[in-house]
Structures are given as C-alpha cells and as structure tokens.
C-alpha cells in the first residue's frame, strides 16, 4: 500500500479519540502535503465527511493539497521585508523559475510561497530555501542562489 504510514497514523489517531487537526499535521509533515487518497481513508476510518476535511485543509496555510517540489522557497512579505522591496524579490523569484507564488515548477524542483515575517526582520528582505535563510536580498541574487539547488543535487 502506498500510504502505509498514513494508515498507521490514522489508526493511532482513532485510539486517541479521532482528533483531526494533529492527524492532518502529521500527514502533511510526512508527505509534504495531504494526499487525496489519505483524506479519503480518513473519511472511511474516522467518519468525517470529505467536505469537512477539505474545508480544514484549505483553511490553514500549513496544509497543502499538492505535493511540494524538492525545494521549498519562502519569500517574506512581512511588513519589514515588504517595505524593503520584498515584493520585487518575489517577482524576481517568479521570473527566474517561471511560476507564480503558490505554484511548483513543472520539473517538481521548486515550490514558491510567500510568508508573513520569519522573525528576522533585521535581515529584510528575507528569502528562505528549505532550511537556508538569505538576508538582505537583492533581486539579482536569486539567480546565483538557485544554482546551488540545481537539478543534480542530492
């Protein structure tokens, strides 16, 4: 079965009384998104309606319904970053990768998202790729950064 782990998580959740949000968090962390198959499994195992799950999954920013690319790029649009040109940084990222915020490149390498403040405003404008944070960003810099995470990596 493709989603064996999810099956075990759902079973464990059932034991704990079927509380939904922590389960969805775990599944999202495990797969990087909430696979439709797993959501369907939850409806049959825990008795929630699919519409309820979809409602929660679309309400919280944390959850994704589509698999993420290998690398996750977050561009800060919080107040400090915004006033220091965060929007132009985002545009340059979108330009280089050819996707809009919220989207994933067709080769599944990169997913771009905007966030509101990462808590390091003194470095504004800030961009993060996976666990690496890049402060005092300039629009031209992203082209070099992205090379580090190229296709053949890993």
């Amino acid at each position, binding site marked *: 079965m493709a989603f064996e782990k999810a099956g075990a998580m759902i079973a464990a959740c059932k034991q704990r009384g079927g509380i939904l949000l922590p389960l969805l968090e775990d599944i999202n962390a495990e797969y990087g998104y909430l696979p439709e198959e797993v959501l369907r499994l939850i409806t049959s195992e825990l008795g929630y309606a*699919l*519409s*309820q*799950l*979809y*409602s929660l999954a*679309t*309400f*919280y920013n944390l959850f994704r*319904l589509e698999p993420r690319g290998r690398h996750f790029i977050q561009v800060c649009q919080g107040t400090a970053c915004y006033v220091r040109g965060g929007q132009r940084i985002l545009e340059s990222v979108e330009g280089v990768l050819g996707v809009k915020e919220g989207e994933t490149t067709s080769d599944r390498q990169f997913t771009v998202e905007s966030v509101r403040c990462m808590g390091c405003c003194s470095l504004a404008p800030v961009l993060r790729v996976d666990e690496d944070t890049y402060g005092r960003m300039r629009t031209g810099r992203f082209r070099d950064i992205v090379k580090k995470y190229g296709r053949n990596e890993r």
Partner: protein
Amino acid sequence: MVTLTIDDQNIQVPEGLTILQAAKQVGIEIPTLCYHEALAPYGACRLCLVEIKAPQPALVTSCTYRVEEGLVVQTDSKWVQRTRKIILELLLARCPTSKVIQDLARSLGVEETRLPTLGTEEELCTFCGLCVRVCREVVGRSAISFINRGPTRTIETPFKIASEECIGCGACAAVCPTGAIKIEDIGDSRLLHNWHTTLKLTRCKICGGYFAPQEELESLKQQVPLDEELWEVCPDCRRKLSAHKLPHHLSSY
C-alpha cells in the same frame, strides 16, 4: 418557565428558548438572514442583534442567545438600529445586485452602502451557511462546505469537482435566501451548476416524465417508509395514485 422583559413587555416563556423564539411568541419580529427553524442556531449574519440591558449591557445575536431569568431585551434600540444598518451596508457591499438584500436593507432604512464593492458585483452569496448546514444537518450528506479563508473564502464541493455525496435533492438551493445556487433540469439530467455535479433523472413509470435523480430516491427510501412502487412514479402521479392511503405529510415527496 423563565420571566424576562422584551421591549418593555413582561413575558414568561419555557426555558431553553432563544431570544428570537421568545420574541416571536409575543409577536415581535426580529430580522434574520442565517436563521432557519429546521437547523441549529448559527449566529453568522448578525442581523438579529438585540440589546440586552441586564445582566450586563451588550449586543447579542438573538438567534443564539438563550433566555434567562430577569433578562431585559430591547429589539429596536438606537444601538441596535445603528449596528444593524452597518451590517446591512456590509451585506450590500458584498451582494450589491441581490434584490433580496436590497429589499431587506431598504425595509430597514438603508438605501445604499458607503463601503466599496470589491469586484463582487455578481455575488449573491452572503455566507449565511444555510446550504452547507441543511446538507449536513437535514439531508445528512455534507456534500459541500466552506473552503479557504479571508477574501478567497467560498462554498464548494471537495476538490471543486462533482461531489459523490450530492444526491441532487436541491435542499441547498431551496434554503438559500438570495438565490445564489443554480439548479436546472434539462432533458434527462439535473445540473447543479455550483457543485459541478450532473445527475441523471429517473422517469416516472406512469406519465413517463423525468422527475428525480436516482440518488435522491435511494436516499429518501432509507428514510421514508413508502411502498416500493411508489418510488417509481413522479409526485403528481403518486398523488393521484395513492392520495387516500398516504399519510398527509408524505404526499409531497
């Protein structure tokens, strides 16, 4: 019984009633939008706000607030009127072209909104949630729900595709106060435009006309004890066929 005062009238009502229900008992009308007798109180539209003076002064939604001993309620105070007008302006900004909302606003003294309409010219949905709730609480299918958050919030089927739960009963459209849900029967199909769902209609055994989706009939069969063959005829023919042997409240199915 609980004793309370509504608009200077001392009244006694059974425990557990809401202010809205108590007011109704003594003939006082309070405007509502998201309230429906058949559904659990929800408190979304805020139109039914009333002022309570005791235990402490506050604006509360009368559709959700249960009566209590010594409660003093004013359903049309200055404070209530002022607030209600703002709510109506908000509703008008959301659904500027809805005849129902326009009429409602006008009947409560609001002609136009001072708020900008943000690309919602075509919008008819007020987010009262009646469709979502009737589908869950009465029909028992939960085919639709609120999705997203903030400005992109809307009502949808899971994954925005045809719903496997939708039986095409049309309760959502029937309960919608503003006509935001479009359902059409064309030939042998029922089209639920908002829910991306099309269902085949069943033909009446007697007159041959299309009348209801198979899914709806199957679901009703579970709940309503009718003779098997009565499910195969349309309501009109069924009425003629068995008006005498059906209990009255079932004859409209």
